[in-house]
């Protein structure tokens, strides 16, 4: 009786081992890089950690298949290496000699990937399921690309500079025009007064020495002279 029991146990164990082999068609290789991820705070890999792995994977399978109660014993692990890498296969809870399909396992793992990672304080990069691609975060698309905002600021500043330049040149022109108009009216008054003086000096010569140069006034007041 005891012998039969032992024999059956041995059979079960070996069949489980036969289900899980490196390179199994329905299995996946897992690789953990604990030291890379955690450095000095790395934990040692032991049987307890392996138990946690089996439990989390059973959890992932339960989430994927509603209703089926996966147990820790449904996750069979083999070929453990010092790297901390191993193969695993998943057996169906209803029939322990039947393996769950590779694709179903992949979907289950992908859906619960974050939870599995956090159980071990690892990331997609440090807890690798070889053959299962990780779903990367969707890129954040802002409404306006950030470069356009910076461009708008600088372009606005340039536009403002142009407006200021234009305004200042117009103001300067107006001021100059006002100044020259005042000078013109002054000049005209002066020239009237000077003409009188020039008329008196016309006998002395047709030109008169001014501060800026020689101004020939003989043509200026032609009318007056002629009238006289």
């Amino acid at each position, binding site marked *: 009786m005891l012998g039969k029991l032992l024999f059956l146990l041995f059979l079960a164990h070996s069949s489980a081992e036969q289900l899980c082999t490196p390179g199994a068609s329905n299995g996946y290789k897992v690789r953990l890089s604990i030291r890379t991820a955690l450095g000095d705070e790395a934990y040692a890999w032991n049987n307890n950690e392996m138990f946690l792995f089996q439990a989390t994977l059973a959890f992932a399978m339960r989430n994927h298949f509603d209703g089926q109660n996966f147990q820790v014993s449904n996750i069979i692990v083999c070929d453990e290496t010092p*790297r901390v890498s191993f193969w695993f296969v998943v057996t169906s809870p209803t029939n322990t000699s039947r393996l769950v399909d590779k694709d179903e396992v992949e979907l289950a793992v992908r859906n619960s990937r974050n939870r599995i990672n956090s159980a071990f304080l690892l990331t997609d990069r440090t807890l690798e399921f070889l053959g299962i691609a990780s*779903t990367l975060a*969707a890129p954040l698309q802002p409404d306006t690309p950030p*470069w356009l905002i910076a461009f708008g600021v600088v*372009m606005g500043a340039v536009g403002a500079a142009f407006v200021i*330049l234009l305004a200042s040149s117009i103001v300067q022109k107006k001021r100059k025009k006002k100044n020259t108009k005042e000078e013109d009216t002054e000049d005209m008054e002066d020239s009237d007064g000077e003409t009188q003086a020039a008329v008196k000096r016309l006998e002395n010569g047709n030109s008169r020495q001014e501060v800026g140069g020689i101004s020939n006034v003989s043509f200026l007041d032609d009318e007056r002279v002629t009238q006289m």
Partner: protein
Amino acid sequence: MEKDARPNWDSPMQFVLACVSYAIGLANVWRFPYLCQMHGGGSFLIPYLLMLFVEGVPLFYMELAVGQKMRLGSIGAWHAISPYLGGVGLASVVASLYICLYYNIINAWSFWYLFNSFQSVLPWSQCPVNANLTGPVEECQKASSTQYFFFRETLNISPMIEDTGGMQTSQVLCLLLAWAITYLFIIHGVKSSGKVVYFTATFPYVVLIIYLVRGLTLPGAINGIKYMFTPKLQELANPLTWINAATQIFYSLGLGSGSLIAFSSYNEYHNNFEHQAVIVALINSGTSIFASIVTFSIYGFKATVNYENCLERTRILLLNAFDLAEETISINNVFDWVIKLNASHPEQFAELGNKLEGCDLTTELDTAVEGVGLAFILYTEAIQNMPLPQIWSVLYFSMLLLLGMGTMLGNVTAITTPLRDFKFLAGVRTEVLNGTVCLVLMLLGLGFTTPSGNYWFSMFNDYAASLSLLFMVLIEIVIISYIYGIKSYIRGGAPTYQAWDKELGKTVLTNYSVFGQVFIGLLLASAVSCVPLTALHVYCRNRKHGDIKDEVRTESALSTRFTVIR
């Protein structure tokens, strides 16, 4: 009356700063360090400094003299010296025209990178994710994220120069901004340029000093500096070293393009330009050497980072392939383990095959890059690994912008000054003339914003101004520049360019098609032919006037001088 009087610089200092701002451009930052590396590090300084005193200073002095004494732009000045030489001035203006067209696109790219630096994660530091979110975009993975950002997201480059496409909106906007700022700087001629150069000439030095301190404190910087300054004296026997030294001095000082003549034509007649010529030439070379120290410390840092990343990848590869515990191989004994594993598991090791990359620090340092690749790919790669990369990125691209804008001032002034000297344009206001020139150049420059724009840029960069400038100074001073300059253009084989292959994720050497070669011929011919054609035209015109040709010539030369001076 006051409007037609020739404007002047507010002070001789403004003139010196304008020359410094023009001469110190991007070539000091991205061409000189490359030449230093190619031609034996510290020993390149010997031909470089020799050429500076034999070729650079005398030619610089001559151009300043021509402009200051003639008080005209390049066309008028050469015409006044002899009507047969009027073509030299015209050729200068054509060369400056080409330079203006393609140079501002670099400023547009600098703006693009500057604006993209205001993000928490620099966009060139990581590859974008592909459509089904499983990994990075394939093209980006094969190349690197910085290369991908430049060739794909900035330029959207096409496989060949013939494949054009629509203009890139982002590049058009940046080019528009670059031209708007250029116009803002030169709007009142030297009155506005003179004030701007105080900033454009001095700020780059501030950034260079900051970068020098940052660069020298980076890990691995000393590798780069050692590599650069280790002299390899056997390079001095290579004639190409001397040719490159001569051409570098020539182009770095901006000789022959008419900008120096234009700048000095706004000087007081008795300005002491002898001292100024020497000062500017020395500042220019000093800045080149200074910038190359910065560049080499950055090189050293980047090479060290890449080397360490390579070692890490090899380590992971070995750990995964042989399933060893993580602590067994550290980054220091990777090579020992490679030998050990090769001995103990030869077949398994052979299976690794090409996945195992050889990591070598010297090979990383040997990747000499110049030009656009250095500025926009290599530097950004180094910056993304620094702490607080956004600040460094903003500083760096602002510096590039100021260097580029300073040179653009000179380039555009070289065109507007001779135009102003023409009788029929004398009545047009400065602002309107400068604005029209900027607008026309911008519209023509839009061609560089197309997907094949970078290839056109390379073509212009290599051919548009290079040979024609040398030819012009050949006419100006015959012997030395001719021998060294022409020799570097007698190359064997067809002209080629680097085309980006998006499947391979790298650049490949491609021959120009017939269309491309014809265009190169046109570029070269259009500037160079101005000289003989103008001489021919003047000769024919003088012959037509027969006996009184001497009188006519003297009279027309004199009247030209008086009309334009007023």
